[in-house]
Each structure stands twice: as C-alpha cells, then as structure tokens.
C-alpha cells in the first residue's frame, strides 16, 4: 500500500516525488503525510491512536527472466530512438518497465546497461559519421545536426528512464544523471577527438572571421554550435582562448592598417562600428562570459594602442572645426579605456593653451582679442558641455588652460578687457538689449577671472569709467551698477571701493547742483544768469588724477565759478575747489547767416569761439595768449573747429593741420542740417605714452603693496630666510611679480632700515623694529 501511494503521487507530479524520500528521512517515520496530521491531532486531543502500516507479508515473485526480458525491451526502444525508427512499445509500458526494474534493485545495472548502449551508439555510429565528412562548411552543419539529434535522443531516453534518473541517480552522487552522461559520452567520443574538435573550432573561427569581413553567415549555426561547446563545458578551453587570440591578431593588424589609411573621424566611426558588431556577436551567438574579454581586446587593440597618435593626429582638427559629433564619439570611445580620458584631457588642455596663446600674444590682433577670447571660451565650453559630458575634469582643465595662456602676455589682456567693457557700456552702443548686455558682461567676467594682474584692469577701467561718468556718456546706470557689483563679487569690496566712490560723488554732485540752481534763482543780482552751470564735485583719490591746467576764462564764467565756490564752501567748510577745465563742456548758442544753431563743444572749444565775439580775425598767437591753453591742446582744438566735419571757423591758409602761422575767422556761412551740432573734440589718441603712464602708475602701486607685504611678513616672523620670504610673498600678492622685482624691494627696504641681513647668514633677514 505504501508503495502504491508513493508511485501514484510520483506520477501525478514528479517534482514532489523527488522530495518525498527526503521528507520521510527527516521525519524519521515510515509513514506518509497522514502520520503528521495524526501527530498533530494526537497532541491536541491527547488521545493516543496509532495508525500502523505493515509491509506485505510476502513479496510477489517475478518470473526468472523478467530482468533480461525487460532490458531487451528497453534496449530495443533505445536503439529505435537512436536510429529514428518507430518504437514498438507503448511509452507508458516502457516507463513502467524501468520503474519495475528499479523496484527490484536492478537500478545500477540498468544504468550501466543504458550507458553501454548509448556509448556504443555514439562511438560507433556518430563519431565515424562525423569523421567521414570532409568539406569544412558541411562539416559544421553535420556536426550541428549530430548534436541536435543526440540531444533529442537523450531527452527522449531520459523521459523513458525518468524513474531511474530520479530514484537511483539522484541518490547516488558518484554517477552523473542520464543527461549529463549523454553529454559526457558525446564529449568523449565525438568532440573529444582531436580532429573533430580542431575542425569544429577552426570552422567556427573561420565563420566569425568571414562575418567580420562583412559576409553574411549562418548565425543560428554558430549559435547552436557554440551552445554545444558551452553545454559540453569545453567552450572556454577549446574555443574562447583561441577566439580571443584570433580577435586580438585581427584587430592589431586592422588598427595599424586603418590608422594609416583613414583620417581620425573615419577611424573613430569604424571603431564604434566594430564595437557594436562585437557586442551584437555576443548577443547573438557568443557566450555571455566572453563579452568582457572580447570587448576589452577590441578596445585595447583599436583604441588604447593608438591613443597617442589619435590625439596627436586628430584632436586639433576636430576642435578647430568644432566637430561636435566626432568629439562626442571620441570622448565615449576614450572613456572605455584606461587613461583614455586623462590623455584626452591633457591634449585638450594643451590645445587650448596653444590656440589661446595665438589669440593673446600677437599685438596685431589686439583689436579683436577680447571678442576672440569670448568666442573661444564659448566654443570650448560648448564642447565640454555637449561632447565631454560636462565632466568636471574637463571643466577645470579649461579654466586652468585659460588662466595659463591669458597671463602669457602680461597686462595687455587686462587693459583690453577694460577697454572692451568700456565700449559696451558707452552710449551709442545700441547693438545689444539690456539682457544681452548683462549676459555679455557675465561672460567678460569669466574671462576677467583668469587674469592675474587685476590692478591693471582696475586702472584702465577706472579711467574709462571716469570719462563715461563725467562726459555723461554712460549708456545705462543699471548696466554700470551691475558691472560694479560683478567686480565687487569677484574681487572684493576693497577692489571696487574707489569705483563706488566715483558713483557716490556723482550722486552727491546731482544733489548739490539741484541746491545750487535754487541758490542762483534766489540770488538777486543784476547779473545776467543765463548760464546753466552744472558742476561735478570729485573726491580726490577716487578718480584718476588729471593734470592741473590753468586757462583764462571769460569774465562771465569766472563770476559763475565764484558764485558756485561761495555756495559750495558755505555748505562744506574747510574745503577748497580745484577746477578741472580739461573736463568741461559747454552748450553754445551761435548765430550764423543761415540762422541760429546750438553747438555742443568742449570748454576749450568754447573759449576759442567766445574770442570771436570781440574780433573778426585772430591769429594763432592771439588765441594762445587770450586763452592760455596749452599748445598741443590748442592745436587740436583749433583743428576740430576749423578742419573737422563741422567747420565753424575758417582757417587761412587752408589745410588739414594747424600751424602757428595760421589765422582764423568766424565762419558766418556755416550750415548744418541739424539745429544742435556736436563738434567732436579731436581725441588725443590713447597714445603709447598714456598707456605707459597708466601702467607705470599700476607698477608704482604694486611696489607699495610689495613693500607693505614684506614688512607685514617680517614683522610677524622676525627672522626669515630669503626663500621662505619669497614664497610667502607669492602667496600674499595677487598680481604677477618676478623674483627680481622682489629682490629689488627687499634691497630697498634694507636700505631704508626696515630690515637687515643676518650678520652670520647672508641669506637670512631680520626685522628691524
């Protein structure tokens, strides 16, 4: 009864059947599930009621030749399966037979018999057949067919012998399952034979190779055979190693060849294609475990090996031509190999340095330098953003490179940036809306950040800002303020305090002028108050220093000046005012034959024109004595009035330049289509001298800063070696200095007794209190 039950359950669901023996072993009871329920019941009810199952009293006997007969039947079936002929028995009957054999302790013998039959078949039928196939391509097909047939047969056989597999083989660890036995035999007798193995592997390699050459091959065949190798567990030993070797050799050669033949973008595209192909190969037929080694081989032979020459040959070109896609590809490919990105980054960095240097270093390109820098920065940023995935390493590299090359040429970039900003903030720059201007300023600040000598920038910026403010040429107060706050953010309050002071002066002046107008209105004088006087009061120190010039003003103007003086000093005692005629501007009402005009002129121009109220003809010398304007300035002024676009004076003799023998006359026939005419002062071109003067001032300031830093350090340290002092100085000073400069300052301080050389060690300094 026990056996019947087990059998029945086994037939219903075989997975459970495998577990059943185990269960009974653990529970240490010879009963089935019922006893478990019973024991639970027992505990619950406390009533002991045992269900005992007894064996048959007597085993049923089998006929003597039952084993032999049964085996014959089974063998017949196996052979029929192997030779693909119909089986003459019902499958259930065969299954029953196997089961019976097992029940009567014939399992091990049955297993041995089965093994023999299969081995014989494999060895004597399959192997010779395979050996007989000569053609390489057909061989692979035949091999695959044999393998498939073998598998099919083994599945069938295993199904019939399932009971044996479960009942006997599973419980006997030393022997392989029927399926594994089938594999083992196939491995041993078919593929294990040197010839067959070599031919299979060679054939596979040949197929793959021809696929790599671009031919279409039977991928299913490849897949099936490779699965066979995997199933037989010889994939790695006989195939993978040789496959990788072949791959390596192929791509070594291909890499070398194509590096010569193709240009870099083509080569990269090719590598990309190859990698994709190999990936597909893994997906379609190779064993998944090969992927890493295979891809790695391709990467090594096609990328790593040629890193240096790819970069040297192609990077510059790609960057020059802004080949976004190729650069992205390059980044992606290089990111696959060790050091790829490091190398790329290094080359990228030196490219920027090289290109940047050409922008900065050539004085002939000064005009477009800042715009070029902005464009270049934009381009590089864009490349980092879109091609190099905004990698931090590259972002930093761009910064480092810019900082490096921009400072290759001292001072000039700083000066040109200041000028560039001036041109953008000046009135008449209508090319940009406010937002555009704001964005542009932000970009300029980025460039500015790289500059070491920021004091040079400040000096030039201050000069231009003063001009914009005093001449009223600033396009927008908002833009000015925004630029100022950017500078403050970048360099700190100390840097911008003077610039802020300038704005403050302008605001104060506005208030003062409003008050002054009221003051003048309340003045009861017989004085003809026709002049609308506006004075900008500057605080010394905030503004650039302007040369002191004395000129002769007409009586009327002097009077006005005095009124203002009185007014101002009444409000601010203890001060005096120093007038700056160079920065003055006038609005004149002039009468010509064709009607009245308003002339917008500089103070100097006005002074000259006013002289012609008294007389018709004036010589150069007359004008010079009357106005007391400095010679060069006067010549420029006269030139602007008599030789410029709007000629309100006539010069005798005519000519482009003014000489000391010239005579001048008021031009009554002056015409202009506008009512209000602006007569441009001929700007003294910002000569080299003027630039040098500004630079000189900067250097002067720097010397004081160096001195201060040295004394500060020495006061703290008392004694310090030359080297340490210099290195501390480099830490503290924010502008570029040469060791020679530092030495000079140290010498000077020693001379002035701020410090002294140590008597014993000349390389050491002592602070002198």
């Amino acid at each position: 009864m026990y056996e019947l039950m087990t059998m029945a359950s086994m037939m219903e669901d075989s997975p459970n059947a495998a577990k059943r023996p185990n269960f009974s072993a653990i529970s240490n009871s010879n009963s089935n599930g019922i006893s478990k329920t019973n024991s639970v019941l027992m505990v619950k009810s406390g009533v002991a009621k045992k269900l005992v199952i007894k064996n048959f009293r007597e085993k049923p006997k089998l006929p003597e030749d039952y084993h032999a007969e049964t085996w014959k039947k089974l063998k017949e079936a196996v052979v029929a399966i192997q030779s693909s002929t119909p089986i003459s028995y019902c499958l259930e009957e065969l299954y029953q037979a196997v089961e019976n054999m097992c029940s009567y302790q014939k399992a091990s013998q049955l297993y041995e018999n089965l093994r023999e039959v299969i081995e014989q078949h494999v060895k004597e039928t399959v192997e010779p057949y395979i050996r007989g196939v000569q053609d390489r391509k057909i061989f692979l097909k035949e091999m695959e067919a044999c393998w498939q047939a073998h598998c099919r047969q083994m599945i069938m056989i295993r199904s019939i012998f399932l009971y044996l597999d479960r009942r006997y083989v599973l419980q006997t660890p030393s022997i392989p399952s029927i399926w594994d036995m089938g594999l083992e035999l196939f491995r041993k007798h078919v593929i294990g034979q040197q010839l067959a193995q070599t031919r299979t592997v060679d054939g596979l390699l040949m197929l793959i190779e021809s696929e790599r050459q671009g031919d279409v091959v039977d991928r299913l065949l490849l897949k099936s055979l490779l699965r066979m190798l995997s199933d037989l567990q010889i994939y790695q030993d006989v195939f993978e190693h040789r496959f990788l070797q072949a791959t390596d050799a192929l791509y070594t050669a291909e890499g070398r060849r194509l590096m010569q033949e193709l240009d870099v973008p083509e080569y990269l595209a090719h590598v990309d294609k190859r990698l994709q192909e190999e990936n597909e190969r893994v997906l379609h037929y190779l064993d998944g475990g090969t992927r890493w080694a295979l891809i790695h081989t391709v990467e090594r032979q096609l990328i790593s090996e040629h890193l240096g020459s790819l970069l040297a040959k192609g990077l510059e070109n790609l960057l020059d031509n802004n080949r976004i896609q190729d650069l992205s590809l390059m980044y992606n490919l290089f990111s696959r190999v060790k050091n790829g990105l490091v190398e790329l980054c290094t080359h990228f960095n030196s490219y920027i340095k090289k290109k940047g240097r050409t922008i900065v270093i050539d004085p002939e390109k000064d005009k477009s330098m800042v715009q070029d820098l902005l464009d270049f920065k934009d381009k590089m940023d864009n490349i980092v953003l879109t091609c190099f995935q905004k990698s931090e390493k590259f972002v930093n590299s761009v910064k480092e490179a810019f900082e490096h090359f921009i400072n290759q040429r001292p001072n000039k970039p700083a000066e040109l940036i200041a000028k560039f900003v001036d041109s953008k903030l000046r009135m008449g720059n209508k090319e940009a809306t406010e937002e555009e201007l704001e964005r542009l300023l932000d970009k300029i600040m980025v460039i500015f950040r790289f500059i070491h000598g920021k004091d040079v920038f400040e000096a030039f910026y201050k000069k231009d800002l003063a001009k914009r403010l005093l001449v009223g040429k600033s396009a927008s107060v908002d833009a000015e303020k925004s630029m100022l706050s950017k500078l403050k953010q970048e360099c700190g309050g100390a840097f911008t305090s003077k610039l802020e002071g300038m704005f403050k002066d302008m605001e104060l002046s506005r208030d003062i002028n409003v008050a002054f107008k009221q003051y003048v209105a309340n003045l009861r004088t017989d004085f003809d108050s026709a002049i609308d006087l506006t004075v900008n009061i500057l605080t010394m120190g905030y503004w650039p220093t302007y040369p002191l010039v004395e000129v002769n003003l007409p009586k009327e103007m002097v009077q006005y000046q005095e009124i203002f003086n009185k007014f101002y000093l009444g409000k601010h005692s203890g001060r005096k005012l120093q007038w700056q005629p160079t920065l003055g501007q006038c609005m004149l009402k002039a009468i010509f034959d064709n009607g009245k005009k308003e002339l917008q002129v500089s103070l100097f121009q006005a002074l000259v024109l006013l002289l012609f109220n008294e007389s018709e003809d004036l010589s150069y010398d007359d004008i010079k004595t009357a106005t007391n304007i400095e010679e060069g300035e006067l010549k420029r002024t006269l030139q602007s009035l008599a030789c410029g676009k709007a000629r309100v004076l006539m010069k005798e003799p005519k000519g482009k330049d003014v000489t000391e023998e010239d005579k001048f006359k008021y031009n009554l026939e002056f015409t202009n289509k506008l009512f209000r005419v602006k007569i441009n002062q001929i700007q003294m071109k910002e000569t080299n001298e003027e630039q040098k003067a500004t630079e000189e001032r900067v250097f002067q300031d720097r010397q004081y800063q160096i001195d201060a830093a040295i004394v500060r350090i020495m006061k703290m340290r008392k004694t310090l070696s030359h080297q340490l002092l210099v290195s501390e100085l480099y830490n503290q000073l924010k502008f570029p200095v040469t060791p020679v400069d530092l030495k000079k300052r140290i010498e000077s301080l020693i001379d002035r007794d701020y410090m002294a050389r140590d008597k014993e060690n000349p390389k050491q300094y002592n602070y002198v209190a």
Partner: protein
Amino acid sequence: MKVKIKGWNTVAVWKWLANDDKCGICRAPFDGCCSDCKVPGDDCPLVWGVCSHCFHMHCIMKWLAAQQNQICPMCRQDWQLKSE
C-alpha cells in the same frame, strides 16, 4: 554777440584746506580719511584748532579722550576748536 554760453558742465575736485599733507596723529593723508573710516568727506571731517593745527576729527577726539590735559598734540598748546 555771435556766440553765447547757454550751458556749462564742468568738473572740480575738492580738497581740505589743510596746512599739511598728513594728519599729525594717524599719519594718513588728509585726502584720505582717518584709519577708522573708509570714505573721505563729510563722514570723516577735518577740524582746525586755534593753534592752527588740523587733524581728522576722529583722530583728535580719540587723542583728547586719552589725555588728561586738553592740548594739541603738535604744539602742546591748549586745544580749542577754531570757530569759523
């Protein structure tokens, strides 16, 4: 009259009417401000004593606060503000 001035926009720089370049107390130039201030001008004015010496107001106040006798640090005469 052929030409007449209608408007005049000009520039002047203000300076302290001091009899020295530097403040005798803080040694900073009068064009600048005392060591505690940042902005020259009305926020950091100068004062004159009857003795004709002149200092940053902040400087002389500090000095006087630290002394028992209210004397000018330059000439040791009694310190008195010169009235305007």
